[in-house]
């Protein structure tokens, strides 16, 4: 999705351009565009009257923010404790191999992003992989390869 500063403005206005709502504003912008561009951050800093270094401070501290574009397909592997003891490390290896990505990486063609997440609340399925909202319990290398194929 291309980003427009008009949308960013709408989000900022929703919070009354309150500098204290910085994190909430950035979450909404991130949700809308899946990442935070430098242009967006500069604009937000300007609108909220905050120094840019505070925005970098916040966006690099909290894990959810991404300063690079995210892939069209979100791939996550749960590395919560329950999934870990049921073999999440091996699953993550297989997923990384199958999608040719390291955790927290996005493919060059911006097709896939791979993330690790903590407990998703479905430990009974553990270890779990989620691709675009679809849950899979401990897929094998072949099953992962099929998913890679299926994604447009």
């Amino acid at each position: 999705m291309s980003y427009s500063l008009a949308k960013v403005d709408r989000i900022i206005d929703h919070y009354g351009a309150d500098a204290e709502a910085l994190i909430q504003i950035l979450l909404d912008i991130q949700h809308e565009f899946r990442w935070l561009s430098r242009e967006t951050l500069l604009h937000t800093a300007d609108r909220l009257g905050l120094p840019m270094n505070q925005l970098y401070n916040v966006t690099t501290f909290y894990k959810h923010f991404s300063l690079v574009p995210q892939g069209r397909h979100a791939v996550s592997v749960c590395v919560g404790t329950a999934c870990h003891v049921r073999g999440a490390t091996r699953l993550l290896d297989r997923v990384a191999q199958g999608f040719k990505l390291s955790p927290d990486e996005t493919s060059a063609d911006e097709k896939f992003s791979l993330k690790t997440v903590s407990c998703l609340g479905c430990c009974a399925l553990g270890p779990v992989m989620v691709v675009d909202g679809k849950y899979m319990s401990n897929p094998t290398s072949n099953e992962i390869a099929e998913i890679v194929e299926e994604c447009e």
Partner: protein
Amino acid sequence: MSKLTSVSALDELRKDILSRRDPKKTKLSVCSGTGCRAYDSEKVIDSLKSGIKQHGLDDKVDLVTTGCHGFCELGPVMVIYPDGIGYFKIKPDDVDDIITETLSQGKVVDRLLYVDPEGNVITKEHDIPFYKYQNRAVFGSNQSIDPKNIEDYLAIDGYQALATCLSSLSPEEVLETVKKANLRGRGGGGFPAGQKWEATRNAPGDVKYVIVNADEGDPGAYMDRSILEGNPHSVLEGLLIGAYAIGCQKGFIYIRQEYPLAVEHLDRAIEQMRELGLLGENILGTGFNFEISVHRGAGAFVSGESSALMSSIEGKVGEPRPKYIRTSISGVHGRPSDLNNVETWANVPLIINKGVDWFTSIGTEGSKGTKIFSLVGKVNNTGLVEVPMGMKLHDIIFKIGGGLRDGKKFKAVQTGGPSGGVIPEDMLDLPVDFDALNKVGSMMGSGGMIVMDEDTCMVDVAKYFLEFLADESCGKCVPCREGITQMLHILKMICAGEGQPGDLELLEEIAAMTKACSLCALGQSAPNPVLSSLKYFHAEYEAHVNDKCCPAHVCKELITYHIDPAKCKGCGKCLRNCAVGAISGTKKEPHVIDLDKCTKCDTCFMVCPPKFSAVTKLSGNETLPVSES
């Protein structure tokens, strides 16, 4: 809905809601919690909706979509009232039978019932061992209400406790009640809630805040999420009661943004409260004013710490500060602020409604009431369980949890998340109790309870928690930042087969330093996973260091994959599944793994049919068993 301007108007509304409901009417309570959604519960619910309509059963049947029921292992789950029939693992294809058999003719669909390990079929949900031994005072309401409908909450006496407080108890009396109940914080530390409320109440200043900690940072737990998803009003009602007792007009809810369903249900609940006049000015005509704002956390474990959380609410980086002055004196914006965990708040309305005597009749001397645990890992019945404090770990894991999966042997249970420790088998008689768990080097924590079997490596588990903490330490103070990094480095070396003599002593030394010198509880408790596993599983560490052997066959660098020629029937399944072509062999002949090509991905081990179990992992000096033939 019009605003309620008095306590009696709330009573009237409740009567009106109840008069419109017939307790004898068939009610389907279908779980739509996060766990069941992963099993496609939404499709089941859609088919139920259209099926009920098609069969003209709209007037005869109520369909309620609820939050988590607890038994996530067997999702999607459903309970049919008034009989209390429990159906499990429901597929969209089962819906036809549920409608034509159960709803239309009152017949039970046997294949959807629970079957215990001995093969006994159990019809009623509350007779199932998983539920029978629980005391679901807080969590049990989840399955009676649609979290998106405030009327459902009102129908089970919702906001009755608030009305009682506002109309007939002084703030001091409410405070006294919570103090007498000895409600201790469910977020980890177990600090008495009443005492914290009192400190905030007595702190100087007119503007004070109450806050819900819904950050749920423990990476292996989901009970706070499930309370908020399934029964948000119980937490909100507790918060209002606390605000009244402390003297606050404003509250915050700090919730992980990773919990979109919980955020949605909270927002909706707050909106409905406002419509009914349960938020805003002059609530129920009693002169009490209160507002709430929801603050989504952007993902930082350390921001669950009280001072860090408060600076996060102010829009800043959530790093802890030294607490010479506690947050109950100086918190958000330097104002006195009381922070409690989701589950702590959810207990408050119960204490007011059912009384101190009821609450203190449950639990042990020092730990009263119930506690919700996320019972997960290598246990048969994965799910959320609520037990009276004082229940033995053994009973939780074996009676409720149904013991270990796949007939494996129990090894340890981990409580307290990254701040907690592992508890070995000979200590399973321990009761869940704040003080008893602290004594053995673990802690109650927020409720993660991870069961581990013989295939779990304790060194790997310690490494896992330290990896998490190294990532999450804010880095503000050196002992935590460097202590964790150095301990992790040693553990990584040990797991890679490069452990040195003296490593274990060094680990203990760094652990002691980190514990003693870190600023916040993240650093202070970070050594617990290492120290507890070193204490109870020392031999396993020694095997890694001295024999370069991982007895549980987990540490990748210390194991190799082999196919036992005596067991391999040459079915070729592993060969077809190996992504790197490391397996060779002809049909019906034993296959062989080329160790130079093998990436140790575990796939062959997973896919080799259980009747053969030919793929074997070896470590240290282990060799393939000599075949009997």
